[in-house]
């Protein structure tokens, strides 16, 4: 490598296909916002026994599915015709993976909404405290992971990965609690099972947020941090 001072490098040239990449990014952001909104509404529908809101969530799932298809199409087209390399290639690959995670988030929201409809016909088993708390954490994780996509803040993304354990812990606690309910009062079994599945859905949403955060770290830094101590321990991404 040269030790001589390098003359100023020209700014990157604008290409006619830049708009395609912008559209791809926008659709991913839209998909993230839609998925988060679906989760929020599904939990609201559960807590408020609002079946019409739950029905809206179920009906809106197709929007997310269509976005996933669109993002995949755009990614395939871009890879096929534009031969992206370096950060552009990472963006397209990461975008496809993240969109798959977001589609699964949408599915979990739909699942919660369906259970909310069934639970609305019965008396609440207990006041909803832990489930909204889990939902808030999972949604914050999702938001922070997507923030990393917008501004490349890998520290935030790393924090998302480490926060996953928090949601896992509440899920386990809820599992134990609901099991006790079922043992003590068999009449609560059907409701308790619905709540266990809802808790599991939220735990899965947090997992998807974690996946997205790891993908965004790869996008920003080009390093794969999956299944490494780095996402478990404290410390920055180098």
């Amino acid at each position, binding site marked *: 490598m040269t030790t001589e001072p390098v003359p100023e490098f020209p700014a990157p040239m604008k290409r*006619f296909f830049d708009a395609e990449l912008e559209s791809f990014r926008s659709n991913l952001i839209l998909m993230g916002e839609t998925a988060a909104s679906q989760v929020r509404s599904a939990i609201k529908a559960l807590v408020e026994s609002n079946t019409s809101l739950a029905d809206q969530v179920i009906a809106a799932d197709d929007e997310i599915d269509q976005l996933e298809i669109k993002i995949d199409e755009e990614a395939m087209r871009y890879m*096929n*015709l*534009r031969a992206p390399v370096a950060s552009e290639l990472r963006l397209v690959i990461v975008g496809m993976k993240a969109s798959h995670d977001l589609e699964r988030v949408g599915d979990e929201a739909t699942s919660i909404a369906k259970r909310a409809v069934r639970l609305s016909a019965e008396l609440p088993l207990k006041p909803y405290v832990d489930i909204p708390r889990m939902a808030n954490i999972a949604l914050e994780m999702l938001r922070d992971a997507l923030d990393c996509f917008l501004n490349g803040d890998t520290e935030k993304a790393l924090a998302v990965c480490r926060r996953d354990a928090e949601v896992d812990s509440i899920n386990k606690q809820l599992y134990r609690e609901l099991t006790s309910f079922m043992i003590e009062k068999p009449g609560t079994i059907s409701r308790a099972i619905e709540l266990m599945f809802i808790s599991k859905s939220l735990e899965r949403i947090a997992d998807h947020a974690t996946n997205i955060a790891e993908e965004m770290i790869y996008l920003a830094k080009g390093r794969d941090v999956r299944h490494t101590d780095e996402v478990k321990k404290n410390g920055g991404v180098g």
Partner: protein
Amino acid sequence: MVTASTLMETRSPAPNLRPTLPAAEAGRPAAPAAPAGQILIDIDHVDFFYGASQALHDINLKVEDKKVTAFIGPSGCGKSTLLRCLNRMNDLIDGTRVARGSIKIRGIDIHRRDVDVIELRKRVGMVFQKSNPFPKSIYENITYGLRLQGVSNKARLDEIVEKSLRGAALWDEVKDRLHASGLGLSGGQQQRLCIARAIAVEPEVILMDEPCSALDPIATAKVEELIHELKTRFTIVIVTHNMQQAARCSDKTAFFYMGRLIEYADTQTIFMNPGNPQTEAYVSGRFG
């Protein structure tokens, strides 16, 4: 109604064009330009020979208006021969002939007896692999063809020079040295000068025979950007060995092998899901 005048009449006022129309058709209004997606060039069952050697076999291909069509294929597959057929450049080579079939532009057979070849080449301009500016100033390179057509008004020439150089994305780089030699420009600039020269006479079609093969990636990117700009005004047919370039720049792609058209489809189809295993082998670099 499509008449010979469609092919021969200029879209902008260009005085002193040689009258080339059959008398009965002169004076008829020119047919409106075909909207994008319509067929501009219809290549119908064309067999082409260099002497006794057949270079093209039964080529059927329709080039859409205001689109970029790429011809790809290994050396000797006939893609450049077909390109040169489109403005009858092959006529300049002894012993060549279209033995069968026809090539129609806006419905007019370009081999028809009353078609003026010079006029045809004005309507169907060409840019070559190696940039070939005249050993004249940048300004004269652009105005040479126009002067031959009899355009002498200085203001008009100035206007066309600026418009053409802007159209070729070269104006900002050369506006202060229009009277310097065209040969003093870089390779990429020379190629864009040749494109400016081609568009100065307002053709309908621009044929490009490997226009970037001698250029570095930056100059190539500039020419590709230019191709994207130009397709709003012109129909472009490009021969290229650079598969990524065909993928990036073109709307339709035709794959040739041994003088045969193997596959012709939307570029995305050719590069994503080609219908023919030979096309797939070629575009994926597993050919031969």
